[in-house]
């Protein structure tokens, strides 16, 4: 700040530091200086004069701004509080929670209720039982004085709490730890996935939020941006229409497109112009431009003007530095001939300026107030007088320049809807037709117009602009008025068409999403025709689809009427698929009053396209869907800053790491490089994570029910005295050591179906929709299973030991700890084997942890029971486990109980699979050439390498006989999709032909 001040002093030479007013003035001057630079120096002693200089959004340096042409600037922090854009955005980003987490909380509440009711039941029973003296305090088990004298209420409460403590394991605290670990560790697999790695841009998938992994398997609506998401966002100048004649750019030349019937005024001149144009493009290098025939100058002038307009009316910046630190800039292009790099805030502008450069009118840069353009090698300097910035309401921008000849021109560029109405000259009708044709091809169109200004006109414009720009109140309105005043009576020059190529495999991805039962909405800011044609080309809309339109609605009532009509049409033929096109204005009307009706229509359409959308509208649409009665899970995909609001609004936000900065990727939950990766992300990763976490949650509840119910049952046999069935060490270690790893590893590695099958059959995604694996039915199943297993453990052991029979060959007896240990042993084995039954993907890690857990339990118990622990007060477990294992009956009982428990579950599983197989279960039977797959993975695994060499050679003989197509199909990890379109439609099963 001190440097700034000294600079300021230098400028003004005098320093009136006597009042706060003066200081404020100085600060203001500083700002002015910063804003208006050298121009400001000339203004004399502004402090004394009353002179208003407004500050606007354009004088703010936004985040991500880049310094250019200067080493340093001075800035003033205007505001750093909680209402800055960043802080507001930060605040609005609410914590996203997955559906699984929500249902988990519901289950927890149910279990809390079970816990409390068990505790209450126990407490009540304890007191009814204890009413009799002989049970409360028999002669052999007297209370202490203290216990006898404590108050009844206190005793009651402490008893209740003691039961709560006894049963508290039913609420699995470790569940949260395990879930978090699973989510965190599991999310690495997304980043590691080679299928989600984009070679060209060297980008792998990013996980910003690991909390939502499983939500990827629950998506019902996909909202996608178009530009940069479905398309490459690599604008290529394709066609233009100049003065009513269409041209195509082919290899840097403009070629007129086939004979247009409209070009009636002189076929000769047309042909000539064509040849001339060819010449022109040739001549761009040979600079013998002026040798062309006289009668063509008119045409040339128009072309000249058109391309001048293109190369002048923009806000493109130039960087001559070739390989510098900012090489990762968004719009960097390597324009080889001129060694120029253009940077533009919009890719269209860049494409246009580049195209103009290829044609021969090269924009070299703006130096101070002039723009330099090299026309066919000849340098021309245009003085830049004003820029009428682009804004989304006007949808156009203009520049006012002074040509070298001294003439002043206004060039305007913008959407056809905003330019054409303001034109008075030029081939308006033909251009309109051409623009529509371009749009039908899915090209992005812009219209160019110009106007020559007399100096008188310019003076007025200058004055009015200055007034508006310096207005302190209602500046925006005033500016808009002035702009409107300036940008009228234009002469149309023509239109440009820029192509935005579709990303590869977008069609298949959208097709897959639809087959998975996901509704795809495309939200774009593009114009209606462009959007529809892109939608068609990317498969979002089918040719067979009945496309309904809700566009250009002006009034409320009209909109409502249209909506009702659409709803009727949908009802009439519900067989055919419907697609809906809505534009921004109609949407805001529809959302204002007729939300329900609109939602009704939308829900019945399989594809919805919203065009001309403002960023906030995108978020609003998502919000609307989110809060609709079904509460569907939404996913938003976008690549630009304008998609951030929608990405944050949706349940799952996916950022495309495209060319439009990292804003979206940074604000998203997951960032991927290409739209096509969405299919793997959802169908494979989402599906896996969902299955994994759903099983994890259910299993955790199950195993804790198994764990604690015997304790509850035991209370009935010990006078509700809160005697624990298991030793305290076992109580502690059950969730930590004995049963934690198999489920964790399962939840990280489980693949119940081959990932290739999952990806090639998106319909499988429907099997897990609507949180099906965590429905109340499955929850009840697991809970009941847990209880029944617990009953089997407890009563099995009860009938074995409880009939007070010796189980040992030497007639000696067991005690209560042996009883508990027997129950516990059966439980650990059953619960672990139950996990094994759930596991469909047995890697060596699974084997290790599953059998390892059981072995660990045995080893630990032998060790724990084999020593008199010096620091423990009681030696209850001393040799208990070993004695238990020395009993043959105990072994038989353990086997019997484990088998009985699992029999129940297996029977249920098998019968269900046999009688009502789900698609997933059917798909599990599809074996994607498992032997080779196994080998392949074995080879990647280091120990397997050497072993593989021999096995591989052997297997190669087998594989060698297979038809190459078949093998490649089931093999190639990157070809998970359909090999042809037919398989998409007919859903033929993957032929697992044998060699």
């Amino acid at each position: 700040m001190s440097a700034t001040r000294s600079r300021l002093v230098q400028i003004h030479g005098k320093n009136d530091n006597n009042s706060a007013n003066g200081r404020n003035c100085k600060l203001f001057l500083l700002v002015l200086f910063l804003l208006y630079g050298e121009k400001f120096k000339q203004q004399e002693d502004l402090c004394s004069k009353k002179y208003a200089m407004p500050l606007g959004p354009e004088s703010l340096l936004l985040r991500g701004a880049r310094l250019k042409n200067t080493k340093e600037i001075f800035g003033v922090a205007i505001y750093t509080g909680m209402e800055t854009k960043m802080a507001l955005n930060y605040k609005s980003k609410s914590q996203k929670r997955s559906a699984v987490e929500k249902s988990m909380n519901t289950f927890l509440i149910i279990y809390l209720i079970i816990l409390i009711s068990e505790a209450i039941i126990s407490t009540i029973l304890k007191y009814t039982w204890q009413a009799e003296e002989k049970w409360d305090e028999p002669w052999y088990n007297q209370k202490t004085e203290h216990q006898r004298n404590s108050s009844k209420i206190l005793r009651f409460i402490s008893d209740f709490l003691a039961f709560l403590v006894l049963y508290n394991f039913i609420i699995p605290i470790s569940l949260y730890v395990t879930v978090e670990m699973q989510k965190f560790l599991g999310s690495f697999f997304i980043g590691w996935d080679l299928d989600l790695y984009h070679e060209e841009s060297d980008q792998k998938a990013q996980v910003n939020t690991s909390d939502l992994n499983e939500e990827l398997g629950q998506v019902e609506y996909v909202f996608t941006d178009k530009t940069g998401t479905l398309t490459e966002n690599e604008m290529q100048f394709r066609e233009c229409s100049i003065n009513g004649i269409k041209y195509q750019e082919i290899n840097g030349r403009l070629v007129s497109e086939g004979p247009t019937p409209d070009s009636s005024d002189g076929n000769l001149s047309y042909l000539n112009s064509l040849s001339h144009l060819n010449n022109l493009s040739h001549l761009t290098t040979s600079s013998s431009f002026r040798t062309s025939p006289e009668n063509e100058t008119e045409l040339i002038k128009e072309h000249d003007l058109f391309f001048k307009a293109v190369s002048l009316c923009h806000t493109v910046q130039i960087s001559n530095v070739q390989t510098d630190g900012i090489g990762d800039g968004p719009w960097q292009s390597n324009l080889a001939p001129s060694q120029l790099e253009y940077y533009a805030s919009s890719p269209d502008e860049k494409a246009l300026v580049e195209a103009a450069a290829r044609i021969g009118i090269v924009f070299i840069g703006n130096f101070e107030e002039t723009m330099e353009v090299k026309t066919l090698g000849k340098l021309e300097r245009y003085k830049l007088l004003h820029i009428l910035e682009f804004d989304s309401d006007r949808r156009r921008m203009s520049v006012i320049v002074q040509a070298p000849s001294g003439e002043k021109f206004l060039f305007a560029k913008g959407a056809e809807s905003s330019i054409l109405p303001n034109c008075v000259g030029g081939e308006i009708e033909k251009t309109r037709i051409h623009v529509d044709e371009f749009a039908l091809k899915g090209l992005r169109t812009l219209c160019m117009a110009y106007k020559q200004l007399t100096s008188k006109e310019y003076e007025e414009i200058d004055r009015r602009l200055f007034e508006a720009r310096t207005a302190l109140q209602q500046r925006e309105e005033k500016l808009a008025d002035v702009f409107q005043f300036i940008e009228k009576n234009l002469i149309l020059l023509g239109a440009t068409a820029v192509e935005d190529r579709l990303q590869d495999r977008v069609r298949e991805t959208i097709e897959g999403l639809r087959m998975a039962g996901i509704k795809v909405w495309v939200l774009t800011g593009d114009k209606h025709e462009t959007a529809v044609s892109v939608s068609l080309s990317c498969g979002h809309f089918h040719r067979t689809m009945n496309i309904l339109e809700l566009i250009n609605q002006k009034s409320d009532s009209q909109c409502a009427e249209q909506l009702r009509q659409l709803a009727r049409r949908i009802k009439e033929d519900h067989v055919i698929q419907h697609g809906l096109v809505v534009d921004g204005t109609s949407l805001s009307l529809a959302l204002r009053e007729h939300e329900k009706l609109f939602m009704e229509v939308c829900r019945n359409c399989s594809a919805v396209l919203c065009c001309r959308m403002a960023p906030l509208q995108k978020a609003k649409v998502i919000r609307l869907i989110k809060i609709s009665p079904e509460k569907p899970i939404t996913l938003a995909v976008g690549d630009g800053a304008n998609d951030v609001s929608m990405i944050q609004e949706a349940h799952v936000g996916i950022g495309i790491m495209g060319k439009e900065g990292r804003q979206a990727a940074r604000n998203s939950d997951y960032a991927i490089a290409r739209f096509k990766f969405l299919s793997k992300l959802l169908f494979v990763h989402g599906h896996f994570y969902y299955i994994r976490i759903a099983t994890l949650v259910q299993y955790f509840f199950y195993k804790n029910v198994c764990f604690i119910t015997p304790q509850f049952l035991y209370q009935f046999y010990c006078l509700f005295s809160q005697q624990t069935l298991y030793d305290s060490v076992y109580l502690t270690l059950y969730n930590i050591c004995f049963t934690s790893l198999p489920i964790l590893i399962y939840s990280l590695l489980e693949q119940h179906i081959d990932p290739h099958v999952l990806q090639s059959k998106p319909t499988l995604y429907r099997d897990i929709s609507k949180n099906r694996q965590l429905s109340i039915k499955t929850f009840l199943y697991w809970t009941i299973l847990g209880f029944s297993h617990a009953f089997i453990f407890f009563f099995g052991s009860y009938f074995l030991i409880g009939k007070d029979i010796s189980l040992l060959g030497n007639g000696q007896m067991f005690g209560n700890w042996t009883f508990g240990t027997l129950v516990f042993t059966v439980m650990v084995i059953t619960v672990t084997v139950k996990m094994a039954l759930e596991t469909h993907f047995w890697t060596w890690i699974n084997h290790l942890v599953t059998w390892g857990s059981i072995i660990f339990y045995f080893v630990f118990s032998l060790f724990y029971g084999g020593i008199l622990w010096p620091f423990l007060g009681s030696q209850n477990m001393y040799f208990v486990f070993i004695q238990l294992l020395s009993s043959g009956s105990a072994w038989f009982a353990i086997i019997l109980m484990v088998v009985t428990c699992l029999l129940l579950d297996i029977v249920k599983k098998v019968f269900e699979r046999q009688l009502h197989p789900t698609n997933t279960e059917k798909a599990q039977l599809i074996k994607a050439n498992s032997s080779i797959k196994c080998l392949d993975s074995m080879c990647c695994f280091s120990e397997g390498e050497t072993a593989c060499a021999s096995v591989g050679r052997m297997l190669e003989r087998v594989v060698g006989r297979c038809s190459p197509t078949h093998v490649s199909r089931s093999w190639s990890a990157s070809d998970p999709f359909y090999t042809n379109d037919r398989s998409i439609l007919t859903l033929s099963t993957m032929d697992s032909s044998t060699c």
Partner: protein
Amino acid sequence: MIRVRPPLPSPFYPPPLSPPLVPQSSLFFLSPSLWGPQPTPASGRRQSAEGCPASSALQRRWRRRLRLRVFCQGQQAGPLGGPPALRGAAPWGSMAMNYNAKDEVDGGPPCAPGGTAKNRRPDNTAFKQQRLPAWQPILTAGTVLPTFFIIGLIFIPIGIGIFVTSNNIREIEIDYTGTDPSSPCNKCLSPNVTPCICTINFTLEQSFEGNVFMYYGLSNFYQNHRRYVKSRDDSQLNGDASALLNPSKECEPYRRNEDKPIAPCGAIANSMFNDTLELFLVGNESHPTPIPLKKKGIAWWTDKNVKFRNPPGGESLEERFKDTTKPVNWVKPVYMLDSEPDNNGFINEDFIVWMRTAALPTFRKLYRLIERKSDLHPTLPAGRYYLNITYNYPVHSFDGRKRMILSTISWMGGKNPFLGIAYITIGSISFLLGVVLLVINHKYRNSSNTADITI
């Protein structure tokens, strides 16, 4: 012929939708794998593109060329000839790479030529790509059916075996609580008669062979009550001198008596069973023969020898227990439980047996052993016997029962038909389920075998 720099640096990521199926693609697949080294999960080697000495790079490249050529020839001249299938090709490629990588360890980390290695590319390891070799079992009727039958076939014989074994065990149970007025022990219910000795006659219909075990059983006695279970001091019982004089607080209210620590302290010890049972065979002669009862070997060996120990010190046991007092309900102090020194004090087996708290309110505890004398004579021949009871232990206050049980033992313990029946039941159910499943499998074969996925 050999492409040193592949067009695609990623070997395992062929362009989607267009997997190269042409034969030369094997080469295409092979060569890049040399430039994209893959660290294995076990070693965790991460090869960096930086720091590769330029001098050795060329050499290495040469070596690679050679190796590659050799390898490629080997491929083409494979036993079957023809283009190796793509699916198989990549692993071979990776194998070749791995060998190379191993060979080149001496020359520093191998690096990609030209330093064009992409940094952010995920490693192509089986673990990271979730391609670990895996066994993928699926529970279908087909795979489960044999299991059901096998379980049935194994369990039913086991069950029958266990059941028969259990049935061969002789057991007799005599309730001597004396609540029934006609019972000889009825007189002992009043606390005035001390000592009270009663005699109960019974007849063994069949002779008991082998070792016979004598138990006493109590009912409605909650040894598993929490307050009771923890009312002991294991360090005192283990002979800890300080715990002997200062027993654990858990022993309250049986911790101290008359300002002296109780040894053994706690409710369990205090309520030790103190009836004396004697068994007599009434033969043909007029005077009955007493059956010798062995009182050693009724407690767990480890309890007797490790867990329970008399306190150290003095010559006589009495001296070791000085400054302590007997439990309130006991008649004699702990050092007078038995005449034999190795069965006295804390290591008295009756005491140890009692100290192992029972799991359930109805329990048995081993009281005495009746050892087999010879192979020829049964241990307890059929005939009339009488049980002589010194009735001390009061149970009627809590509706308890007292029993005396005589039982023989098999390898699997006492008479317990449950296990056998359970095995037979589960085995039959399993077998039955197998049959049902077989029928269903047969009936619904068509619907389940077609793996059509319906939308």
